[in-house]
């Protein structure tokens, strides 16, 4: 279920863990108009993303409508080892949310 909302890949490079994630989301700005009806498409975008390593917060992203559709996120952090858990969760402006947990490989 949550799998089709996010893809996470995390691996160790030296003493750092590299994380790459794609969050599947329309990221509508609210400024676009539906070409067929002329109606404005309501804003629908992710506002906050939390990335947790072993339940400890490593990165919080505050996003606005200026982030592209199906947002991509990549970052690095130290203090991790292979097999550790990495949890990413997001909420959007409509109150929808998703959480996916991955393992650092």
């Amino acid at each position: 279920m949550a799998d089709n909302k996010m893809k996470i890949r995390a691996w160790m490079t030296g003493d750092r863990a590299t994380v790459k994630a794609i969050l599947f989301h329309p990221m509508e700005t609210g400024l676009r108009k539906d070409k067929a009806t002329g109606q404005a498409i309501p804003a629908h975008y992710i506002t906050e993303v939390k990335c947790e390593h072993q339940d400890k917060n490593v990165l919080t992203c505050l996003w606005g409508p200026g982030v592209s559709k199906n947002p991509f996120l990549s970052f690095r952090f130290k203090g991790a080892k292979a097999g550790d858990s990495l949890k990413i969760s997001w909420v959007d402006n409509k109150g929808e949310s998703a959480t996916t947990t991955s393992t650092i490989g």
Partner: protein
Amino acid sequence: MNNLRRTFLKAGMTTATVAVAAGAGLLTPGSVLAAWPKSAFETKKMDEAIKILNGSAAATNSKDITVEAPDIAENGAVVSVTVKTNLANVEKITILVPENVSPLAASYELSAQTDGFVTGRIKMRKTSDVIAIVKAGGKLMTAKKPVKVTLGGCGG
């Protein structure tokens, strides 16, 4: 008979789980959204957005920050931006596009164990600088990179 009962129980359980999940989903955003700086994302003034997020808009240029973005972006809807810095104690990285309707694109809050490195994809309405503001050790530093956009990313 027994099989039917199994299926029935299973179906019942699934519904219950979904209901609990939905309940939890509805509860979390309220508490999380409070931290989301709505005014910073809505303002059309770049300095104001920086000030709301960082407490001040006075940032000094820094050579220790690199903004990686394409020179020419063919599609303004997807512009890959990487902000790298060697500065110590990076607390926050903010990405802004002055020419967008709302300049603030994204802000990243880093923990002590996170490197000064983030990559994301942003929308750009037209040719503009991409500005990175890095808060490190309580100081604000900035760097920018001009990106030429051939097809705007915010139009319909």
